[in-house]
């Protein structure tokens, strides 16, 4: 019966870890089918739960228009995936705790903090980073506006500011400077370029360009 093969039929198999598989397989099968960390652990006789925790899982996600098929540990954040594995270092790690906004990216069109997003939760999603904003060599209007208005000093928060600023306009929350300040409050700039950032966003909004 299928129940024997899937002892917990109520558990969902989509994206489930391979621990049931490991439970039932010989070590030889495990060699053939599981990633190295889990195999090593099984080989050394470590407890299976320890083994499966280091197991890599498959993730399909589209990043800046490119479909990616990846294998990652479940504990990897979207931010670390972008920076450490895909070399997309435009997205910055500031506080790594969702307080500064330097890691802001768009997931399926909405702005989020990549540092608090487990990459595994972006399965099937479309992610846009600062690297995906320009159209080839032509800068995005918001990038142009940040240059024009001097919307940065050291530049570290800038990719997050720009991603957030684009979303702020798309969400319809950039009608006046007060509204912009409120809806950009999740992006901290320790150089204090705030007034120029507000000017840049107002400029793009009033210019009516498509963002």
């Amino acid at each position, binding site marked *: 019966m299928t129940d024997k093969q899937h002892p*917990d039929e*109520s*558990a*969902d198999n*989509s*994206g*489930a*870890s391979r*621990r049931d598989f490991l439970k039932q397989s010989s070590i030889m099968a495990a060699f053939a089918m599981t990633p190295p960390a889990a195999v090593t652990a099984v080989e050394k006789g470590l407890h299976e*739960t320890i083994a*499966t*925790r*280091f197991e890599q*899982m498959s993730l399909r996600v589209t990043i800046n228009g490119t479909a990616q098929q990846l294998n990652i*540990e*479940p*504990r990897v*954040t979207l931010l670390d995936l972008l920076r450490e594995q895909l070399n997309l270092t435009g997205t910055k790690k500031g506080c*790594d*705790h*969702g307080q500064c*906004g330097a890691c*802001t990216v768009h997931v399926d069109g*909405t*702005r*989020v*903090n990549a540092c*608090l*997003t*487990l990459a*595994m*939760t972006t*399965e099937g999603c479309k992610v846009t980073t600062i690297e995906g904003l320009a159209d080839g060599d032509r800068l995005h209007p918001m990038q142009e506006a940040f240059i024009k208005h001097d919307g940065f000093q050291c530049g570290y928060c800038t990719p997050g500011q720009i991603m*957030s600023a684009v*979303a*702020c306009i798309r*969400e319809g*929350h950039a009608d006046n400077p007060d509204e912009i*300040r*409120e*809806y*950009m*409050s*999740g*992006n901290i700039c320790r150089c204090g370029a705030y007034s120029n950032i507000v000017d840049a966003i107002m400029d793009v909004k009033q210019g009516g360009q498509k963002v």
Partner: protein
Amino acid sequence: MNPFQFTRVTTPKAAISAVTKESGTYFLAGGTNLIDLMKREVIVPERLVDINKLPLATIEKTSTGLRIGAMAKNSTVAEHELVKKNFPLLSQALNAGASAQLRNMATVGGNMMQRTRCSYFYDNSMPCNKRSPVQAGPDKGQPNGPNGCGAIGGYNRMHAIFGTSEKCIAVHPSDMCIALVALDATVNVSGPKGDRKIPFADFHRLPGDAPQKDNTLQPGELIMSIDLPMNDFAKNSHYLKVRDRASYAFALVSVGVGVDMKGKTIQNVRLAMGGVAHKPWRLTEAEQFLTGKPATEDNFKQAAMLAMKGAKGYGENDFKLTLAPNSIVEALKIATTTA
């Protein structure tokens, strides 16, 4: 971050089953608080059950009001036409919380489940009964750092003035929940023993002897949705949040008000406070006092005095004993003069 097992589910039944099966298993929704706590090793799950693909994000009219799915994002709820029109207090409270990015990630259910931001809870080297419960009784949890309460006699500027215990004086951090308790919401949950409804005021609990328990959910129970009954408060609602900076900060004190006015008379009123207790703090006695009375500053002040009965400061948070009643009066003034 410590390694953990990861499972993705697409049905509530599978989610409940996965979290019931083995201890140390947590639901993962928006992750804005849980992932942060995991990075700091305040919570060290053995397994995460990703519930982001559950079909629980709809917002729909019901015969009695509005039903909001537990997985609806905070930003979606705040911007929803029916919420803005019928329950502006909820929309205001949501928009007063966190940042635009976090509101895009955080869910309604996750917002209810968020932990206190007490700095002693967040620091493994500091004593905290919530993080590291005393090992006794049926509700014992895993120890994680020293127990005790660092905030009592410590840095307690952000802490509670109502409903505290000698084990814990932490505050519940949500803005959304202040609106929901004021609006008489009901929480629909599903669990291994079936479905049940919890009045919002009974969802969160006071610390007592078990501050590790923030709420009255049973093991394995999953929040499915929130029901809001229709009311006549939409025209005269206000969420007042007093905080250290104008945006993106937790409340020192917040007040949620909904008033049903007839001319200058208060026909019916709902009042709740945030930043003052371990749970969203409903001001029932003040509500009863104001019902049927004219909307005057004198009446607001008397109501605020009633609301402050039993309040207790812990030193650094003594200012809340003045700030809270002043905020109640201010919120009532604003709500009753809104056209």
